[in-house]
């Protein structure tokens, strides 16, 4: 019987250790060194489902990160900053709202259930009949009835299941920790992302405007090429030509630059277009749009107004 007790004690210890670990992991500090990030991680993005302010890519979360950074720079403590947010967004803005009332029961109930199950398991596994039956194992088979033994096995299985559950939760919690926090979104990145969304909605003029805004803050040829494509698709061939030429003055062999320039020229200078598009094919014969351009050049009469405007190969993140 000793091994049974030892096993029972071991299971109990394992359960308690797992419960303790889970408690510490879920309530302890996340161990972030950057104070801005630490505070942002403790705030829930109000516009998202289950994302913290540090993880979310929504514009409002980016603004909240900015507010956190501003307040940290002003020397306010994390608790003061969190209180500031609670005043504006209510307590649900906290990733870990203070446990009270019904929510305290959420913690207490699993613990109580766990204790109850452990108790029942120990009682069931223990030989019945009190001290009289505490004798060598020879009596064991005639000890508890069949139903008692079945119940005992069920309890063992349940306990092991609980251990497995808690272990898997502990392991999963570790995997949920972000190994590398995403860089905070800056306004330019947000603008570019919005522009891409607009492009997907086929609102090319609006997308071009957002790319333009992004470029005003930070000139970047990849974004400029996306702007050129957006302009082309919105029907502004002149703007597309100007923008792509701008890129080509810096990198004359930019395949996307040549592609968009050639396509734009079909509207502005139709005689120059084939030459530019051939240069594009010479520079980037493997380009995803190359096949379409070859078809376009081969076809004697390109369909009017049907600018194919293939996707640029370069993708901005």
């Amino acid at each position, binding site marked *: 019987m000793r091994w049974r007790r030892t096993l029972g004690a071991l299971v109990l210890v394992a359960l308690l250790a797992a419960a303790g670990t889970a408690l510490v992991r879920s309530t302890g500090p996340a161990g972030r060194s950057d104070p801005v990030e630490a505070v942002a991680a403790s705030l829930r993005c109000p516009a998202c489902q289950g994302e913290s302010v540090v993880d979310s890519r929504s514009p409002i979360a980016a603004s909240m990160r900015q507010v956190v950074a501003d307040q940290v720079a002003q020397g306010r403590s994390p608790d003061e900053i969190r209180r500031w947010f609670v005043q504006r967004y209510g307590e649900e803005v906290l990733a870990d709202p203070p446990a009270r009332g019904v929510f305290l*029961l959420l913690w207490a109930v699993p613990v*109580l259930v766990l204790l109850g199950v452990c108790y029942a398991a120990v009682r069931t596994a223990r030989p019945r009949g009190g001290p009289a039956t505490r004798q060598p194992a020879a009596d064991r088979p005639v000890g508890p009835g069949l139903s008692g033994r079945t119940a005992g096995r069920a309890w063992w299985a349940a306990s092991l299941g609980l251990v497995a559950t808690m272990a898997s939760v502990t392991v999963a919690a570790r995997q949920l920790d972000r190994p590398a926090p995403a860089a905070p979104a800056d306004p330019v990145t947000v603008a570019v992302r919005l522009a891409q969304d607009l492009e997907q909605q086929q609102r090319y003029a609006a997308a071009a405007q*957002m790319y333009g805004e992004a470029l005003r803050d930070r000139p970047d040829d990849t974004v400029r090429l996306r702007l050129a494509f957006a302009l082309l698709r919105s029907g502004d061939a002149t703007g597309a030509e100007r923008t792509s030429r701008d890129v080509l003055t810096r990198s004359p062999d930019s395949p996307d630059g040549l592609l968009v320039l050639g396509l734009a020229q079909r509207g502005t200078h139709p005689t120059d277009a084939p030459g530019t598009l051939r240069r594009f094919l010479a520079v980037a014969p493997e380009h995803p749009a190359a096949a379409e351009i070859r078809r376009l050049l081969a076809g004697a009469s390109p369909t009017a107004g049907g600018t194919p405007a293939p996707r640029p190969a370069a993708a901005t993140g």
Partner: protein
Amino acid sequence: MSRSGVPRPWWRRPPVGAALALALAVGAVLALRPTSAPTGGDSASAPAPALAGATLDGGRFDLADARGQVVLVNVFASWCGPCRDELPLLAEAERRWSDRGVRLVGLDVRDGAEAVRALLAETGTTELVVLPDPDGTRSVDWGVRGVPETFVVDRQGRIAARQRGVVTARWLEQQVTPLLGAP
């Protein structure tokens, strides 16, 4: 466990039964509990946060100066489709009630000046007083959760109502007219 020698079924044993009953009770309470209304920032009729700064057209706006008027604060952005749709309705409300002291100000979140000018031109709302909020921090100060969002600030400078998402003519009627008093 049972003195009579017939073991009681597992669910009759006290600790298990008690734990199960407790778990069920708590589960029922949690399931039936009405979702709590958000506290703090949501409570209407709280004093409106400060809102002041240079406007898009180079002027200046200060909500404190608008005390005594009913101010509609519309949080919007040119990149937000629903905002585009509701702007004309809000501008029309301001026109309709302007002689009764209603003003409209747009808080333009994380947007570009050119993009928002184009939006105003497109929606025929070029008269709108726009307060740019390029980094969105003003909106966060107002507890904004997304765009569009509209606040009604009463004549005493308190938030009388807020609408997350698009406003309707009916909502404006219901929220604004009680604040106007006798014409």
